[in-house]
């Protein structure tokens, strides 16, 4: 019984997300973003010796939608480091959807995050921590992340670490 509850929340959140998204698309001709619509964000990549993360600052276009902004920041993260860090999420990965509910960001990735992942515990740990810390650093209203793959809960990315739970910044440093 208990287990069903998070799934229901997810479904409700997904529905809410698409409804909101739809409404947004109904708005005619979006204006070209002005310069002040860019924000400096912090992305976390792997350290070269696999000991923790290195920060990289980047300017990212933002909107007034939290989930949109999360998506843009994660898109940037996936695009890879430009400043000597080690890439974490496979660059082939697409973000299918992002939604947020009660301080938890749900990020739905395409299969590529699993299929194109290669590496051991170090690479897998760094992938998860770079995602969790990047979101934590840029979105104070978010205090946990859930990773979905093709819309479903995934147990693991690379076969080592368990990720089918709310991933908290304090647990993934």
């Amino acid at each position, binding site marked *: 019984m208990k*287990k069903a509850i998070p799934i229901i929340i997810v479904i409700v959140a997904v529905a809410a997300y698409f409804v909101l998204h739809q409404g947004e698309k109904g708005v005619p001709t979006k204006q070209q973003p002005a310069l002040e619509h860019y924000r400096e964000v912090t992305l976390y990549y792997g350290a070269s010796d696999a000991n923790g993360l290195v920060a990289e600052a980047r300017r990212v276009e933002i909107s007034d939608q939290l989930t949109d902004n999360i998506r843009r920041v994660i898109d940037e993260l996936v695009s890879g480091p430009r400043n000597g860090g080690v890439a974490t999420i496979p660059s082939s990965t697409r973000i299918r959807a992002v939604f947020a509910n009660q301080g938890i960001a749900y990020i739905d990735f395409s299969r590529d995050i699993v299929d194109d992942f290669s590496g051991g515990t170090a690479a897998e740990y760094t992938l998860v921590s770079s995602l969790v810390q990047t979101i934590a650093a840029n979105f104070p209203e978010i205090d946990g992340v859930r990773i979905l793959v093709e819309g479903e809960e995934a147990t693991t990315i690379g076969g080592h670490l*368990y990720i089918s739970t709310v991933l908290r910044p304090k647990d993934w440093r």
Partner: protein
Amino acid sequence: MRFWLGLVAIVILACNVKAGTIEVLYANGRPPEHLDAREARGSVLIAADDVARLLNLESAWDHNLKRMTLTGEGHKLEILAGASVWVIDGRTVPASGITLLEDNTVFISAQAAASVIAPAFGRSLMWEADSNRLIVGLPSPNILDLQVNSMKGRMSLRFVTEGLLRFQLLPAGTNQLEMHIPGGVLSRDLGFESEGGLVRKVETHQEADGVTVTISLADYNLNYNVFPARNPAGIVMLVHEVNLSEIPEPELRPPRRLAWQEKIPSAKEKIDLVVIDPGHGGENFGSVGPSGYTEKEANLAIALNLKEMLESNGIEVILTRNQDRFVDLETRTEVANSVGADLFVSIHANGYGNSSASGFEVYFLSPPLDDEARVVAAMENAGIGVVAAEDVSPSDDVAFILWDTAQNEFVAESSYLAQLVDEELALRLPIKNRGVKQADFVVLKGVYLPAILVETAFITNPQEEDLLKDESFQKQVADAVAQAILRFKQDYRR
């Protein structure tokens, strides 16, 4: 003393009786012998004196009263030749089967000796009418129960035994297996049938020298493992559906006879059992080095070395895979839990997106607080205070949640073992010590015993890839882990 001179006595005239012999087998391994017997009206009869001897009882023949008295273990049985009743401890019971008096020797039916006389003295005797064999001193049942657990795509059979029992598994036709348990004594018929299950039918047969179990599997692709289990003692068979895209050897075949099947010591002897889990395998390569050496190869080579070293130190080892084969994470965990092992050690090699990353590290599991909160909530929900993991079957939600955090109880032992392994590796390996770490590993999560995961070196680092390929490095890693386990064993001896 009451006289029971039966007027309706079933005394057979000697002329209707055939003489012959039966075979007597001893469960304790004493050489078999032959016994004089009589046959009358389709019943096999044996001398009451012989029965007394086989059961280690005193016998006395009262010629005047034509009364045979057997005594032992504080019990007394009186057989009056020709009477329709016997007297057991002063109680009269209907005489069992045919009684024959021949030259001052009372013959009673072998069936009665087994089913009435032996139990009256707390002894064990078994009569096999088909083969005219009497089995003496069969110990009390040691195959107590069969627990069946069915989950989606998997099924487990656990024969609960008294102490560890040897067994042998043999193919017995298409989708059928036969398991022999020498010395096994069934508490009762433990067979069952299930229409939709992966195991369709189990039949148990008590034989003179043990038990034969016939297991009929569903006729699609299944994989199975059979392991001796401890805590509680048993023989566990795991059957699971084979995903054809994942498993290179889909058709059912008899498992190799593994070393441990022959080596299980007798029930009372204490053994130490470690499950070693070589990470990845089959289509799952794990990390791959710059020259193409795969993590799955390195893991297996180290695990095989480790197995040999532990075994030479008297520690039993079960591998979750002993060849290049895909094994899913749930099965690895299930093996660890079902065999009653003392320790679980998963062997991996690390991989990273930068080839300069280097060194070894040792992990134990730290469940995030969220999980603990979940357990508490689940327990409160279900109205339970404390649940021992053995008491929960993994078929309800609460049990699954508790199983998830099985490692909670072993954090102290697991971290201590991780510490020892890290120390021993540091003494031997020419690479960086990245230390003991905690993380939430899928393969450790459900393991209900102290468990660690060793990342031996970075296969993505060209120098360390060369080391991982090197046999002497593989041996050094194995030696370090083996030493750590021996130290752990010593420190945790009770």
